[in-house]
C-alpha cells in the first residue's frame, strides 16, 4: 500500500489524462469496474455512502437449496475480498460527492466524508479498543468489513455523550482518531468517473393497499432475503414458521399508476428462488404466486408452470391482487379477481411483496452535477451499442443506475465500463 502516497498528489494537470479513476458506488457494478481498472494499472478511488462496500448484494441470501440456483449473490461477496487484496484500489466508505468540476481526463472531486472519527491511517492495531474505558468497548472493528478499520459507536462513546474522555485518541499510535473531526472533506483529481450508484428498492408504503407495516406477516422480498441471510429461516413476527405463504409479483413494477412503466427483470427469478428455499424448509407449506406474466430472467432457473404441475401445494394465480386485508384473527387476506372473474379472498400466514427496482436516490442531482442525460424512467442514459457510455466523454455508468439488472449483468457491465474507461485514459477513444 506504500505506493499510495506518491501518486495521489503529484500529478500535473493541464491536458494530461490522469491515470486515476473515481468510482461512485461500491456495489457489484462498481467493484467489478474497480477491479477491471486496477487490473489495467489504473489507480481507483472507490467511494460509497455506506460504511462497508458490497452494496445491496451483501444483504441478499444465497438461495441454493440442494444445489446452486445461480442467484449470483456469492459472486458479489467474493469480489469484496479481491478489492480488499488489491493495492491499486483505495476505498472511501461513508463518503459522498460534494462537487465535481474540471473536464474529462482531469476532474476535480470533493468528497464529503461523514463522521470520519477514524481516518484511513487506521491499521486495526487495536490499541484504541484496549484504551477504551467503556465496558464492552465503544470502538471496535466492523466485523468482516472492508476496509478493515475501527469504527466508533457514537451511542456508547463517552466523549460523544459529553464526558471528557479521549483515551482512544491518545492511545492511537498512528494519529488516526480525531473525535472532534466530524465531517471532513477530501479532494481528489481523477481522469475518469464511473457512476455505479445502484437502485432504490420500491418503497412498499407507496402501495398502501398491500398493507405492508400494517398487517403482521406482510413483508417485502428484501426483508425475506435478509431474514434468510441472517437466520436461514423465514419466520412470522411471533416466531412461528408460516404454513401458507403468498407471493405478490410486480409490486412497484409494470405499474403506470406508480410511474413505474418498466419490468424490474429480477423479481420472478429471485421470488422463485425464495419459494424454493421455503419448500426446502417445509415440504408441506402452501405457496401461492399472484402474477401477470412469468418472466424468469435467467431461464435456467426453472419454470413456475412446470413446478406447479408437479407440486400440489404450489398454486399459481394469474391475477394482480386488489388489496391485502386483515382477517378477524389478524392474518393477511389477499383479495383478487379469480378465474371465474369473481372476487376471491384467500387467507395466508405470510405475504411476500416482490418489490421492484427504482432509480437510485439522488441520481437526478448527480446527473445535473455531471451534465448527464437521463431516460424518461429516471435512470442514467447509456448507449445501447456501448453499454457503459453516458452522454458525456470521460464519464461512464454501470449497474442498476442505468436500468434494472441482475447481479451477473451488473458485473458484466462493470467490466465493460472498466474497458471503456481504461481506453479513454489511454487515449484510443
Amino acid at each position, binding site marked *: 500500500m506504500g505506493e499510495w502516497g506518491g501518486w495521489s498528489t503529484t500529478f500535473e494537470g493541464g491536458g494530461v489524462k490522469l491515470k486515476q479513476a473515481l468510482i461512485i458506488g461500491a456495489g457489484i457494478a462498481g467493484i467489478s469496474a474497480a477491479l477491471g481498472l486496477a*487490473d489495467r494499472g489504473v489507480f481507483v478511488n472507490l467511494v460509497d455512502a455506506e460504511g462497508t462496500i458490497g452494496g445491496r448484494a451483501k444483504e441478499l441470501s444465497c438461495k441454493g437449496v440442494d444445489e446452486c440456483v445461480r442467484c449470483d449473490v456469492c459472486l458479489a461477496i467474493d469480489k469484496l*475480498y479481491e478489492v480488499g487484496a488489491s493495492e491499486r484500489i483505495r476505498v472511501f466508505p461513508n463518503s459522498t460527492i460534494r462537487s465535481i468540476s474540471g473536464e474529462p481526463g482531469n476532474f476535480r472531486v470533493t468528497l464529503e466524508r461523514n463522521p470520519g472519527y477514524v481516518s484511513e491511517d487506521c491499521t*486495526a492495531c487495536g490499541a484504541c479498543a484496549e484504551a477504551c474505558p467503556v465496558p464492552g468497548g465503544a470502538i471496535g*472493528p466492523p466485523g468482516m468489513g472492508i476496509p478493515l478499520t475501527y469504527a466508533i459507536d457514537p451511542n456508547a462513546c463517552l466523549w460523544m455523550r459529553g464526558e471528557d474522555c479521549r483515551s482512544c485518541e491518545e492511545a492511537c499510535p498512528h494519529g488516526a482518531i480525531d473525535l472532534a473531526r466530524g465531517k471532513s472533506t477530501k479532494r481528489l483529481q481523477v481522469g475518469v468517473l464511473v457512476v455505479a450508484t445502484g437502485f432504490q428498492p420500491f418503497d412498499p408504503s407507496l402501495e398502501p393497499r398491500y398493507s405492508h407495516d400494517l398487517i403482521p406477516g406482510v413483508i417485502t422480498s428484501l426483508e425475506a432475503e435478509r431474514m434468510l441471510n441472517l437466520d436461514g429461516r423465514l419466520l412470522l413476527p411471533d416466531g412461528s414458521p408460516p404454513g401458507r405463504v403468498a407471493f405478490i409479483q410486480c409490486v412497484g413494477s409494470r405499474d403506470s399508476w406508480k410511474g413505474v412503466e418498466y419490468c424490474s427483470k429480477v423479481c420472478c427469478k429471485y421470488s422463485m428462488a425464495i419459494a424454493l428455499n421455503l419448500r426446502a424448509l417445509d415440504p408441506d407449506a402452501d405457496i401461492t404466486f399472484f402474477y401477470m406474466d412469468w418472466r424468469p430472467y435467467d*431461464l435456467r432457473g426453472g419454470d413456475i408452470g412446470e413446478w406447479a404441475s408437479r407440486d400440489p401445494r404450489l398454486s399459481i394465480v394469474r391475477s394482480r391482487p386488489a388489496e391485502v386485508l386483515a382477517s378477524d384473527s389478524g392474518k393477511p387476506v389477499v383479495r383478487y379477481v379469480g378465474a371465474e372473474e369473481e372476487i376471491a379472498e384467500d387467507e395466508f400466514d405470510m405475504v411476500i411483496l416482490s418489490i421492484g427496482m427504482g432509480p437510485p436516490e439522488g441520481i437526478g442531482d448527480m446527473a445535473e452535477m455531471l451534465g448527464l442525460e437521463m431516460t424518461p424512467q429516471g435512470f442514467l442514459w447509456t448507449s445501447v451499442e456501448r453499454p457503459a457510455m453516458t452522454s458525456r466523454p470521460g464519464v461512464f455508468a454501470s449497474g442498476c443506475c442505468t436500468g434494472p439488472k441482475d447481479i451477473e449483468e451488473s458485473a*458484466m457491465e462493470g*467490466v465493460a465500463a472498466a474497458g471503456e474507461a481504461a481506453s479513454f485514459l489511454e487515449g484510443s477513444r
Partner: protein
Amino acid sequence: MTLPPGSEPVTMSSSSRPARTRRPVVRGEREPTGRIGVFLCRCGGSVDGRLDIESVREKVSSMDGVEECMVMDFPCSMESRETIVNVIRENDLDRFVVAGCSPKAVEARFKSTAQESGLNPYMVEIANIREQCSLVHNLSEATSKAGLLVEAAVAKCSLLVPAPHHRGRVESEEVLVYGNGMSAVVATDELVSEGAKVHLVLPFSPHRLVFNYHDGIRPGHLEDMRDRITDSDLVRVHGHSSVERFEGEPGAFTALVRSSEGAEEIRCGAAIIAWEASEVPSPSLNGSLVVTQAELESIMDQGRVPDRTVMITLREEDTYCPERITHIEALRNAIRMKEMDPRVQVTIVARDVLAFGLSELDYREAMSRGVSFIRTEASPLITVGDTVKVRVKDLNLGEELSIETDLVVMSSWTQPYDTGHVAQVFGTPVDREGFFIPTQVKLKPTASIVEGVFLCGTGVESKTPSEVVLEARSAASRAKAMVSSKMEWGGAVAEVDPESCSACLTCIRSCPFNAPFIGETGKAEIEIGLCQGCGICVGLCPSRAIQLYCYTDGQLGAQIGALVGRVR
C-alpha cells in the same frame, strides 16, 4: 514440470537461509520437518472470548516443530504482518500457520507475507477458527474444535514443500476472435478500441455477416462497425477460415488457422469464441401463409401489411422453453404493422409475454395500439387452406378459439450449428443442443473452462442483441486485461513422477482443462499454466504417479490423522 517459454521461476532467496533442495519431493511420505510459527488471531473479540484462545495456544505450542506460537489481535492487519515477518526472520522459521478467519479472506495476504519473509508463498497453512468455530459453537465446543483444527493445520504444515510459483511473460498480446456473427464484430471492436491486435477468424467472408436489430441498436450501426474493424490496421481478418488446432497456455497460445489457401500458425495471448446460434426452421412454415418473423419483416419492407396476422411465440414442441428475443421481435413487428396501417388486426399468442426491463414499454405500446394477446399453454394447431385457421385454447376464457387469418408468423428457435468441432479444438465443452457451457465458476462471467479462452454470443445462451453487445464487450475487456497483466501460475498444481508414470493416458483423457500431455521422455507432464488443481488426475492415476502440490497424500493424511487419530 514444464515452464512456458519465457517464464522464469521467482527467486525466493532474499534471506540468508540456505536454499532448499531444488527438486521438491512431492510424492510419498516425508519426515515432518521445519521450524513452524503459529499465529493465533483474537479477531477483536469475535474469536477471543467466544473460545479460549490461551488454551489453544498452550496445546499447540508443545507440538513438534512449533518454534513460536503467539496470539495476536489482527494478524491480517498491515502492522501485524510486519510483526510476523520479523518473527519469521528472527526465529529462522521456514513455514507458518495462521489461525483466524476464512482462508478466502486472508490467504492471499499471508502468501505475500510469506514472500516478504523470504519463503515460498505456499509455505502457509490457514486454520479457520472463526467462521468454523467461534461464530457457530459454544465456548467449550469452539475451544476444542479450534484446538483440533490448528493441530491439523500444524501437522499438514510440517509436511509442506515449496510449491512451484512462476511468473510468465505474456508472449503475445494479440487476441484471437473466432466467430460467425454479431458478437465477433463487437468483441473485435472493443479490443481494437482498447488498442489490442486482433486475429478475426470467420468461416465465411466478412461481408456475409448478418445482424439483427430488434433491440434499439441503430440500424446500420453493426455494418459500420464491421467495415471499420475490417479496415483497421490492428485487425487481420482471416475469412473463409477455421481454427484447426489450439494449444499452449494463457499468454502464449498457438492456433493453426486453415483457409483454402493453406494453413498458418498464429501466436496469441488469449482467445474469444464468439459464436452465434442460428435459426431452426419451424416445420409448419410454408413461405407464403406461414412465415418467420424475418420473412414478415421483408414483406413489410416491401410496404405490404396483411389485414389479419397471428403471431405465435410458442414452440411446436411440448417443452416450454421461451426465448427472450422472440417476444421482443414479435412486439416490435406488431407495433410496426400497426404504425403502417392502424386498421390491421394483429394477435400475439403467448403463455407469458417476456418483455423484460424496458421492453415492457414496447408491450404497453403494442397494447395501446390495439394488438391483442391470447394466453395459452400449448402450441396452437394451424390448418392451411385459402386462408389459415389457428385453433388455440385461450386460458383466460377457458375456451377453444378458432381464428381465421391471412398470415401466421412463427417465431423461430435458435440452435448453434457446427459448435462440435470448435469445442473439440478449444477444449470447451458444449451441451446436448450444441450450446457452449461456460465455466461452472459463476464468479467469472464470460470465462470458459479453459483459462485464457472466453465465450460470448448466442452460442452460449439465447439473448437479445443488446445483451450480446454487453457480453461481447465484457469478454473482450477481460481478454485484453488478461494479456496486459502479469500472469502467475503455481500453488496447487499437479506434478507427475516420471519414474512411476506408465504413460497410460488416463490423466490426458480425464483432465477437463487439457493440462496433461506426453512429454519428450514419453511420460506424462502437466502444463502448470492450465492446471486448475482439481485433483481428478491424482485420483484416477492407476500408477499413483501424480500428486498435487499443497494437497499431497502425505499432507492430507497428516491433517486427517491429527483430527481423527493417526492409525500407524
